[in-house]
């Protein structure tokens, strides 16, 4: 089998995917993606993972398994922290160990660079960890990395311009709200209502971190910081009619941060908001009912405010 690096399309792929793909492309290494999450991947992940793991982790293990037979290497980076005092959650910090303990792969099959800070030394070491098993020189790796970072910084989130009735913001960890398997039902519903949805992952990082500055002394999780920043930003926008927070059952940071945001952001802002918790048993009927009810409420308010035509206020 020739060299082929498999990248699971889950967890931090939704955050850094394009950077990783560019990196491997620039260094001329063939890459295989595990594809979009589907029922089979979820089922496999559920049987592989420890029961108490959160659903994104279960899905991740399903993705990894689907790559094992076709790829010579699997890319499972450990990203624990890249801004000072901003950690990522325990599961992400232990990701290579979780994968290793679940599948018991040969050490060289796993490409797991360790990112604990953003220093040049860490990056040099990380690039070396990837390049060595692939038979690349470190110089090629560095060039590829530098180029990839440049491309990554230049990507601008897409903004749609077509007319809509209203805008609803969806906030959550990017690995949940960007995974079609979890959010397609919500998306479909709002499309049918001609409502545009904006997800927090599409906001430029600059805005998000600027908005999150007020919470810096309390929140120390990187992802939660982004959620707080996005929540703050959306609540300050007049054209956002409501905010939906999607989190997964068993998500450690979310269990506390949602409460914190409720008190510090949502209540003072008076924006309609709702927390949707998903797990692997979520039947979509229950989810849709809640989203429908939420939209009814938001629409009612919009009608009262005269922002929507009041045809038969129910």
């Amino acid at each position, binding site marked *: 089998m020739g060299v082929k690096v498999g990248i699971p399309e889950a967890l931090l792929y939704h955050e850094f995917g394009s950077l990783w793909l560019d990196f491997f492309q620039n260094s001329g290494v063939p890459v295989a993606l595990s594809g979009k999450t589907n029922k089979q991947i979820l089922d496999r992940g559920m049987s592989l993972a420890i029961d108490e793991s959160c659903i994104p982790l279960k899905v991740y293990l399903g993705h990894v398994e689907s790559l094992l037979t076709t790829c010579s290497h699997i890319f499972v980076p450990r990203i624990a922290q890249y801004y000072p005092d901003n950690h990522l959650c325990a*599961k992400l910090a232990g990701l*290579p160990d979780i994968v290793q*303990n679940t599948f018991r792969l040969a050490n060289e099959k796993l490409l797991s660079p360790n990112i604990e800070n953003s220093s040049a030394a860490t990056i040099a070491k990380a690039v070396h960890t990837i390049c060595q098993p692939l038979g690349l020189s470190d110089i090629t790796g560095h060039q590829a990395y530098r180029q990839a970072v440049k491309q990554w910084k230049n990507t601008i989130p897409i903004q749609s311009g077509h007319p809509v009735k209203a805008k609803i913001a969806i906030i959550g960890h990017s690995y949940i709200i960007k995974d079609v398997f979890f959010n397609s039902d919500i998306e479909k519903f709002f499309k049918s209502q001609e409502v545009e949805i904006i997800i927090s992952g599409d906001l430029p990082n600059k805005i998000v971190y600027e908005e999150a500055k007020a919470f810096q002394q309390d929140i120390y999780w990187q992802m939660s910081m982004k959620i707080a920043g996005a929540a703050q930003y959306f609540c300050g926008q007049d054209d956002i009619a409501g905010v939906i927070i999607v989190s997964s059952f068993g998500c450690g940071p979310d269990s506390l941060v949602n409460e914190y945001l409720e008190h510090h952001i949502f209540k003072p802002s008076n924006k309609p908001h709702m927390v949707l918790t998903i797990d692997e048993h979520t039947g979509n009927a229950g989810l849709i009912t809640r989203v429908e009810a939420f939209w009814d409420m938001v629409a009612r308010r919009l009608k009262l405010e005269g922002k929507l035509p009041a045809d038969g206020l129910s």
Partner: protein
Amino acid sequence: MKVSYPQMGYLSIPVYNMLTNLGVEVVEAPAISKKTVELGSMYSPEGVCLPYKMNMGNFLESIDKGADTFVTMCGAGKCRFGFYSAVQKIQLSKTKDVGFYTIDSNHLLTGLYHFLQSVAPEVSCLEIVKQLTMAIKTLKALDTINNAKNFYGSRSTTPDTIIDIANQSAGDFRDCRAFRDVKDKQNRVIHLIKSMSEDNNKQPPKVGLVGEFYLLLEPYVNYRVEDVLIKQGIEVKKFVNTGAWVYSNTLLSSLGLYNEEHAYQKQARPYLNHHVGGDGLKSVGSTLWCAQHGYDGIIHLYPFGCMPEIVAQYALKNIAQDFNLPLLTLSVDEHASDVGVLTRLEAFVDCIKRKKK
């Protein structure tokens, strides 16, 4: 100012002594009961882990008793523990205007020192250092007694007496004022335990108790698993020696002589190679140590949903398999019932005993 703090097994005794000896008025939370659990869960976010809910219950009960200033620990890391106080403050401020102090466990010495200075401003620096040292001494004494309970209790034909002596002795350390006191009391209890136990050279089956700090420490939430095992003739090694922990995290680490992360990172290899926050690395390291030192079983105890311990569990599963080591995982939340836990413990002990034969 009436200071209160969460209950945490015998860790609250030296804290009480330290504060009262410095002239601070302390209102202790009532011992954890069913009411604490209910109250705590009612005023906590649903998905949060058990220690948060118990601490909350303690705070609310001590507010009823008149407390107005709270001190708690926080450990900035990947685990939720560090974020407790930010959310607890929100809930508590709804009830009453309260003061809230948090001590960062990563800077335990400086944190404790600053806290003590602000609640007892007129006390000299030397006195504070003395009280800190005494707290560590007391904790070490309590650890020693606990270890003696495990050692002699499991070898005794009347383990109940020894358990009672050890458990009740903890209360005697209240109001200790001098180093001499601590030493005397420790010696007396150890002597008493020794005199109660018969000479017996038989080595009972050994079980390692690993997991999350709070769950291991607070007997109410861990269903006194240690005592249950001792009564069935199992020698327990609990991997949370508070005295040693506080000592190494205050004095040694501030001198740069100790780094908890590095100490356990080496021990946990190759099953867990990185720090994952909380006690994850420690659980894996201790389990591996037990596996290599002829232990007969491992009990892994953690609050439901604990992030670091779940990561650790992936590793524990493999250690158990590779070393053919029986492993019992107990994930505890506010709904767990003691009967269910006891049944599982008994079945586990039966397994170990049969395997040993």
